[in-house]
């Protein structure tokens, strides 16, 4: 989902004229990338590399934080104490993932406040998937299974990102993320195998609604993803949008069969020649509409974030005032 950052970015004008010094640094940087070396925060890097990373990492961080909202919606209504404890732990993880990523973005010289301001003003994006509503309990399970499943598919290659602080954050995130997918599948399996007909229908309905938006998480088709090549060159992106999407479909078909649900695509068919599952055309107009701010929940999500930030302002200020008071007392003593 985080590869969406490259495809939803405004076009940058790259300065044509550079100094000889900078050209030498650039050559050295390219050689390090080619050798598979990691770039650390204080190392020289091209301005465009830095900017692209800030955009991608912060969009990823925003996605984690906004992603807490659709699921947080169900914490008080989880069906059992066990499911509630699991969901609390998962939503807390998402908050933690956001923090790892904000910290990684800040190593590039941007402040946390600037990043949040970009989110709150609507200038920065987050993954399109979180602008869909969670209507039933089955949506929570489906998010775990499909949304987190798609996220893992996307995130595992970023563990080898050339920018080391991002790669380190991703390793930690991926380690924690697989519990998210498994708990979702487990919740759905329980309803499919031990539930009522109505519960099974609820699961199928959730899968029907989430399937296509999940396929969109991987971003536009490769031939409409002009920034991908640069991302690949820099080792920020390792696997193309279409390749990841295909991997996700191939992995999910068997899981759906075990679960006992159908995937809402009449064109879904095994292609022995390709060794992959063929699937139907994606409605990209819906994707661009959601990215453009016109999804079902865009306004609700953003206003929830802005309200939380504003309502928490006095806590942040009080904590700082408290810390400053103690510093002054210690200095006086």
């Amino acid at each position, binding site marked *: 989902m985080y590869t969406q950052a490259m495809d939803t970015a405004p076009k940058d004008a790259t300065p044509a004229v550079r100094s000889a010094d900078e050209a030498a640094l650039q050559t050295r940087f390219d050689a390090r990338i080619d050798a598979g070396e990691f770039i650390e925060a204080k*190392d020289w890097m091209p301005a465009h590399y830095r900017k692209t990373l800030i955009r991608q990492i912060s969009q990823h961080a925003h996605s984690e934080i906004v992603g807490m909202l659709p699921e947080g919606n169900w914490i008080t209504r989880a069906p059992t104490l066990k499911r509630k404890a699991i969901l609390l*732990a998962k939503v*807390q993880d998402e908050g*933690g993932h956001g923090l790892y990523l904000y910290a990684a973005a800040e190593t590039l010289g941007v402040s946390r406040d600037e990043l949040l301001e970009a989110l709150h003003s609507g200038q920065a994006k987050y993954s399109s998937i979180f602008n869909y509503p969670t209507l039933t309990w089955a949506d929570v399970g489906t998010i775990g299974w499909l949304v987190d499943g798609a996220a893992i598919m996307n995130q595992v290659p970023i563990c080898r990102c050339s920018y080391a602080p991002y790669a380190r*954050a991703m390793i930690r995130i991926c380690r924690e993320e697989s519990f998210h997918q498994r708990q979702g599948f487990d919740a759905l399996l329980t309803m499919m195998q031990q539930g009522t007909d109505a519960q099974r229908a609820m699961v199928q309905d959730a899968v029907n609604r989430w399937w296509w938006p999940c396929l969109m998480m991987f971003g536009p088709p490769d031939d409409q993803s002009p920034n991908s090549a640069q991302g690949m060159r820099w080792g920020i992106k390792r696997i193309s949008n279409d390749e990841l999407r295909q991997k996700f479909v191939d992995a999910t078909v068997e899981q759906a069969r075990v679960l006992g649900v159908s995937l809402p695509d009449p064109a879904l068919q095994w292609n022995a020649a390709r060794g992959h599952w063929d699937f139907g055309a994606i409605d990209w107009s819906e994707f661009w509409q959601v990215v453009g701010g016109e999804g079902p929940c865009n306004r609700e999500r953003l206003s929830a974030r802005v309200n939380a930030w504003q309502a928490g302002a006095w806590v942040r200020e009080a904590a700082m005032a408290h810390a400053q008071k103690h510093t002054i007392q210690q200095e006086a003593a």
Partner: protein
Amino acid sequence: MNQPAQEWPLWEVFVRARAGLDHKHCGSLHASDAKMAIQMARDVYTRRQEGCSVWVVRADHITASDPQNKETYFDPAEDKVYRHPSFYRLPDAVDHM
């Protein structure tokens, strides 16, 4: 009184995975003071028993070597292979020394 927004300072977090191991850098976070930084480090970095002890250090209190000087600073050790035991080839009878 309307004060300008002020960001909480940045802290670097070090976690000891278990007794007997070093504290290892694992990330950073913002907190208003040391006590809050410790609490938040617990919540952010040890949700799955990844540690038994946490250090936090204000990021602006850390002095680091300059990456521009990496070669001049660290490469002189490169040709001093005699600092490693493997440099010395001893007779077989005593080579487990």
